[in-house]
């Protein structure tokens, strides 16, 4: 069992993982710390890419903001040297940045920055081997994504190959908030839980604390991205938002 998986398994309540786009503004690492202090169990750090095809308007806008500030993987890694939290960090990005940086160098840089897992949004399991070998060698685990459209046999394969946890996409669509919680979110969570003993976290379309509370009856936890980035864009309190979700997901 990987360290990330063991750490998440040891969490005594439903798992809450906020997503924050690295470099979105000069305070981005402060938001990470606020989230940790408000009860996040892990934090997902986005490294912005020019063509984020699975991201909706909120995270696209955050990516544009970050890139316009000159954010690169290296500036994010440098900033992460000042991370003072104890919960695991997982990086989410797109494969071209990894490919360009070089598999070994990118994996090593993640490890040196204290990142324990990575999600590559456009690297499906078929194409992942070359990267995962480099990542494994550096001690960084690769989390795979399961989608509502993923058929059973493929889902089993993804759950077997995923490390740390399984990222269950709650809706067929881009990242972002929805007016109502899609039925597909609980369905994919249950299907993934049936296929693996690894933690299953639902992301995409988890819009409110109520959504989160509903989902953790089926899943081990949730990942919240767009609500966090919308709060940051509006200049609001990340700590307050995470507290609301934490309260909704507190042990009974």
């Amino acid at each position: 069992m990987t360290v990330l998986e063991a750490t998440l398994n040891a969490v005594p309540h439903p798992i809450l993982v906020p997503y924050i786009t690295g470099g979105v503004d000069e305070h981005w690492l402060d938001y990470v710390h606020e989230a940790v202090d408000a009860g996040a169990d892990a934090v997902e750090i986005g490294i912005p890419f020019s063509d984020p095809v699975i991201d909706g308007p909120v995270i696209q806008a955050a990516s544009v903001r970050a890139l316009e500030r000159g954010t690169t993987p290296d500036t994010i890694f440098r900033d992460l040297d000042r991370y003072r939290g104890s919960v695991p960090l997982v990086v989410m990005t797109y494969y071209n940045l990894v490919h360009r940086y070089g598999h070994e160098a990118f994996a090593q840089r993640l490890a040196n920055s204290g990142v324990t897992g990575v999600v590559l949004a456009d690297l499906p399991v078929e194409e992942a081997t070359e990267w995962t070998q480099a990542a494994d060698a550096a001690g960084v685990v690769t989390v795979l994504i399961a989608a509502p459209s993923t058929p059973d046999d493929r889902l089993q394969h993804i759950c077997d190959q995923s490390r740390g946890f399984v990222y269950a996409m709650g809706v067929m669509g881009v990242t972002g908030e929805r007016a109502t919680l899609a039925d597909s979110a609980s369905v994919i969570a249950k299907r993934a839980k049936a296929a693996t003993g690894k933690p299953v976290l639902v992301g995409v379309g988890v819009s409110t604390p109520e959504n989160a509370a509903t989902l953790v009856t089926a899943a081990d936890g949730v990942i919240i991205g767009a609500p966090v980035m919308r709060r940051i864009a509006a200049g609001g309190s990340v700590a307050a938002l995470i507290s609301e979700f934490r309260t909704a997901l507190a042990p009974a």
Partner: protein
Amino acid sequence: MTTSAMAPPSGRGFFGGFGGRFVPEPLMPACLELEVAFRTAWADPGFRADLAALLRDYTGRPTPVTECHRLSENLGVRVLVKREDLNHTGSHKINNVLGQALLARCMGKRRLLAETGAGQHGVATATVAALLGLDCVVYMGEVDVERQRLNVFRMELLGATVVPVSSGSRTLKDSVNEALRHWVATVEDTHYCMGSVLGPHPYPWMVREFQRVIGDEARHQCAELGAAPTHVVACVGGGSNAAGIFAGFADTDAELVGVEAAGGAAVGGNLVGVVHGSKSMLLQDSYGQVLEAESVSAGLDYPGIGPEHAHLAEIGRATYPSVTDDEVLDAVRVVSQTEGLIPALESAHAFAYLLREVGRSIPRGSTVLVNLSGRGDKDMEQISDLLSQRKEAQ
């Protein structure tokens, strides 16, 4: 030359080291389903016959090869032109759309989704959607909506919904991003009718196969004219018209030349990258952020190139030089006034290369087959503006 220069890709969709399937997981099942559907259809004589009938009776194929006597005399090379401009809707794009739309119908999809740059692929998709009774939505960059207003109106008249894309560079690259985002949410009933030899497997291969009718016809037509082309020249954005005509000549001694726009020369940049579903040559910065292409031609305003072209470049079977916007404008005027053929700005890149390179990389006495991939009607307003700007600058 080997016959395998344009063989089918590997099982995972690679041409040499390029291609593959790099898409978010929610789209993987659709790509796998499409591959099975295409393999089945392409091996089915009934599907082939349906497509051939539409290409003949609806599009007007075969398109002729025109011997360009005046241009030939002026240049000292034999110039043959494959007339894809004579297709219904004005370009080669409809060859691919008819194939994909028939396939979509086989798969039970009731909606076509497309991206478009110059608008030609959008118009072709809207046209075929109307013909087959399918819904159609087209994503088009705001910049392109502006420079191709007439095509926007054509698509809407045909019953399609045109969605302007305001993200990023607001051109072809971003309309592909938005089309992919839309597809994730609609994949159950929607087929993404990609317009070029780009995207995840099986698109680059499938689109080339649907466009190879250009090269197969031209091979036969050149033989009838007693001409064996020494050079086959086509413009390249993603590269579908080039892939189509190259496919007919990959096993000959002809030099295959794909002409890129100077502001979007992916092969010239010589960097491998992954975007929009495949690994290929890509304009990008030192961290892998994709750069914005800049070209006078909306259809070539794309920072990448089809993966098979990257492969053909790597093995040396084809070359991918570039021409400047100025050279392109000159070519539009020369070809219009010498042959009475007004090329689309995209297609004019192929002619610009010919005009520049005769006596240099194209020896006098050569036989050059140029793919006139589309007609210039859509570009009249823009060409008129550019020519008057140039006059003012002088």
